[in-house]
């Protein structure tokens, strides 16, 4: 068997039937897109920096996100962009007590921790994290073991050749979608071997991470190739640079573009949407779910009386 055939064969083996996604104590069926609300415990994230740096403000944000229909909360203590070092100890200090507070307030809420270091992940899982959102594509391979140890879920992402907290510089791919699929399926396979529950594994093409705007648009256009693998797909696109560049829109002006990408992703079968704007995202997803026929209208009376 030649290499290409072997690769095709291996990829086929890594596919799975779309099924239940388990997060925390919840089971989510396909056809019900989930909103993952972003709450950053940082002073310097790219969008609305410092908004939830204060812990009480962050908790208020959680209350609002839950009220607006968030299914998952994603808490991060380290910005993705380059900047002052955030040590493991500092990351844990920023995030772990907060996750404990959220867990106490919402025993059933799915909590995701945006981290890439296994030492942090271990502390955050102990604090109540259900899902390790590893945006940096297993830079630390021990994350999967932590997920397995705590029965947590794991996000398997693609960043090309990036290391954490660096910016892409002239990334190039023969086929970016194939590169993404190969990487995330490899990580998913490794995670399963490490003992992570396959029903708790999510794949994320990671728009903008290690990609230029053309690459992120291509991933969006061909998202059905990712969803066809059967693994639940996470879309993290909220207010990102590829939206800004595509529309010529500054940071404060990317909501419409974000929702357009969200709608296309939902139409093509992505299951989790990481979002700053929970209410708007929930509405966009509900609308798409009803267009797909997965969700009945809230109320249909017009012309039926």
């Amino acid at each position: 068997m030649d290499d290409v055939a072997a690769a095709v064969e291996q990829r086929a083996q890594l596919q799975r039937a779309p099924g239940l996604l388990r997060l925390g104590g919840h089971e989510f069926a396909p056809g019900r897109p989930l909103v993952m609300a972003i709450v950053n415990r940082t002073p310097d994230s790219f969008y609305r920096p410092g908004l939830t740096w204060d812990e009480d403000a962050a908790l208020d944000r959680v209350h609002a996100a839950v009220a607006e229909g968030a299914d998952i909360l994603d808490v991060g203590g380290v910005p993705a962009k380059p900047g002052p070092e955030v040590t493991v100890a500092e990351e844990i200090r920023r995030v772990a007590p907060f996750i404990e507070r959220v867990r106490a307030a919402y025993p059933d809420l799915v909590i995701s921790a945006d981290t890439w270091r296994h030492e942090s992940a271990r502390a955050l899982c102990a604090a109540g994290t259900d899902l390790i959102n590893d945006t940096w594509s297993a830079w630390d391979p021990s994350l999967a073991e932590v997920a397995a140890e705590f029965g947590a879920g794991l996000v398997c992402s693609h960043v090309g050749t990036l290391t954490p907290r660096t910016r892409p510089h002239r990334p190039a791919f023969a086929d970016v979608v194939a590169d993404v699929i190969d990487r995330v399926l490899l990580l998913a396979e490794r995670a399963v071997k490490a003992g992570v529950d396959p029903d708790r594994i999510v794949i994320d093409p990671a728009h903008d991470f290690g990609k230029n705007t053309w690459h992120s648009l291509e991933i969006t256009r061909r998202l059905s190739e990712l969803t066809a693998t059967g693994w639940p797909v996470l879309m993290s696109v909220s207010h990102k640079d590829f939206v800004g560049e595509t529309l010529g829109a500054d940071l404060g002006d990317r909501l419409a573009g974000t929702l357009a990408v969200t709608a296309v992703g939902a139409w093509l079968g992505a299951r989790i949407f990481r979002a700053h704007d929970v209410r708007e995202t929930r509405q966009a997803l509900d609308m798409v779910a009803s267009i797909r026929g997965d969700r009945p209208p809230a109320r249909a009376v017009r012309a039926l009386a």
Partner: protein
Amino acid sequence: MIVAAAICPSPPLLASGITGQAEILPELRAACAAAVARLLAAAPDVVAVAGPADATAPFDPAGELSLASYAPALRSSGPLPSAPALPLALGIGGLLLDAPGYQGPRAYQGIAEYEPAAACLALGAKIATAAPRVALLAMGDGTARRSASAPGYLDERAAPFDEAVERAVRAADLSALAALDPTLAADLLAVGRPAWQSLAGALATPHPGGAGPLQTEVLYSDAPLGVAYLVATLIP
């Protein structure tokens, strides 16, 4: 002979699932269910469902409402229906019979909207004599011009028309039903007129109660969405 008769309206929103996640007009649904329960309690040999259709004709008892015509996303994935789809009024009537699990004989009679009163009365008489014990479910909506947001916009003549129909039903005044003006009814989008007049014709034929008075009860009468819905039972 007619052993029991009922009037129900036939808005699509009575079909299960068609209003989405919201339960719309639960009181109307409950009233229709109660009316049908009384028909079935009379132990009929057959339930005849009469209602407006494009033409006056019987329809296949195996027919069903084409829910997908109103809500394509609700298209059934099961086998194709064995009979042609029923017109709306008869299809809703069928669903009302299905709801309590009725599996006995049923007959569907469509009546054209333009059918004159005399023809409707004669059709009713024919329905009444189809079996020793016939229950009649007359599917008929009132006017659709009860408010500015009504499907047919506001017509000041609509409310008096509906009130007259309700009064006639309450009083079991069959001649008042027989005298309803087809042209005015059509103007007001009161598509139930032929069905009500068939009911009048059916109840005017000899029935087990002899010449005794009909027991009538109005279970619902309102126009919450601008269309007049009347639910009533008339038991000999």
